[in-house]
């Protein structure tokens, strides 16, 4: 049933035997509706079981399969073969160390995600027996977009500032902080500001906007970051020029 033969160039790196990564090319018979992940799975099952990469859901929701496809950060399960020529080159996500083949080391990202206190810090505690918080559809909509992040890290691979300054907390983590800040049930903004308004926080972002261009879930992290900057600036001026305005 094969409809097309492609050449899949895969970046290989085996830390036990290689001193640097190299490319290996596979001839893969593909169906046109396939995604790059299907081609990789074909390689793994039929051509070379030693290729390592992460994946699980095959439906662009688990965030495992981020990689560079022809130089662009993509989810392998949402990169359609029919959108590419007969040569497709896959590499591990940029800006992350390579563990092995297409697998990157993501500790840095996970640590940053945890650092922004990404959980609801309620204005006041409410027992479960008191029932749910009320939240209007409009209030939900205010932050909904920023809840859609699947932690795929494509934005980190696209953001040059993260590549240049690895301490930068980065687009997804700051967007997540913004998500909770904007939630009508939350009262924890002050606490999160300490992290995200710090030097390595939002101020390392120069609004390149690449993060939003590559985000597969249309989270628009660039937008979140600019909003955080605006709010932090207003905070600062309020605090320093109008100290009496401080809550």
């Amino acid at each position: 049933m094969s409809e097309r033969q492609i050449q899949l160039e895969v970046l290989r790196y085996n830390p036990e035997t290689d001193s640097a990564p190299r490319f290996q090319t596979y001839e893969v018979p593909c169906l046109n509706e396939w995604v790059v992940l299907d081609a990789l799975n074909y390689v793994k099952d039929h051509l070379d079981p030693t290729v390592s990469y992460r994946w699980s859901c095959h439906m662009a929701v688990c965030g495992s399969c981020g990689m560079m496809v022809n130089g662009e950060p993509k989810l392998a399960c949402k990169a359609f073969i029919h959108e590419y020529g007969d040569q497709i080159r896959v590499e591990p996500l940029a800006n992350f160390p390579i563990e092995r083949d297409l697998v990157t080391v993501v500790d840095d990202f996970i640590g940053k995600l945890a650092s922004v206190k990404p959980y609801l810090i309620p204005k006041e505690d409410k027992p479960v027996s008191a029932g749910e918080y009320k939240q209007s559809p409009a209030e939900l909509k205010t932050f909904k977009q920023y809840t859609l992040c699947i932690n795929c890290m494509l934005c980190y691979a696209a953001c040059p500032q993260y590549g240049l300054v690895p301490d930068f907390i980065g687009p997804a983590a700051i967007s997540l902080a913004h998500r909770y800040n904007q939630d009508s049930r939350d009262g924890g903004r002050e606490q999160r500001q300490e992290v995200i308004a710090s030097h390595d926080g939002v101020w390392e972002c120069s609004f390149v906007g690449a993060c939003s261009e590559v985000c597969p879930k249309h989270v628009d992290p660039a937008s979140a970051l600019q909003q955080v900057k605006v709010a932090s600036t207003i905070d600062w001026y309020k605090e320093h020029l109008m100290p009496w305005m401080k809550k």
Partner: protein
Amino acid sequence: MTVAKSNKPIVWGPFAAGGTITAFVTPVLVLLTLFAALGFVPSLLTYENLHAIAANWLGKLVIFGFILLSLWHAAHRLRVTLHDFGIRADTWVAIAVYFIASLGTVATIFYLLRIS
């Protein structure tokens, strides 16, 4: 507080405001000076008219506001741009660009006050 909050908002405020102002008016101003450069001096740029505006306190304020924001916008962005070009001595760069902006600000005040 665990990590100190950054003081970037001080300069980011004028950067953002300046970016907006310059986006709205700089192109048309350049157009006017371009006319002057081409030998056709627009009425706004004649000595009499411009002097009249700058002599007026409201006029002074508007000119000052525009130049101030425009300077600080450009200075701050220049700092980031130099960083992007690989110049990593951010502290020195910051001192240099903000010094230029301060100098321009002071000069503007000085000249505006001399016009009466």
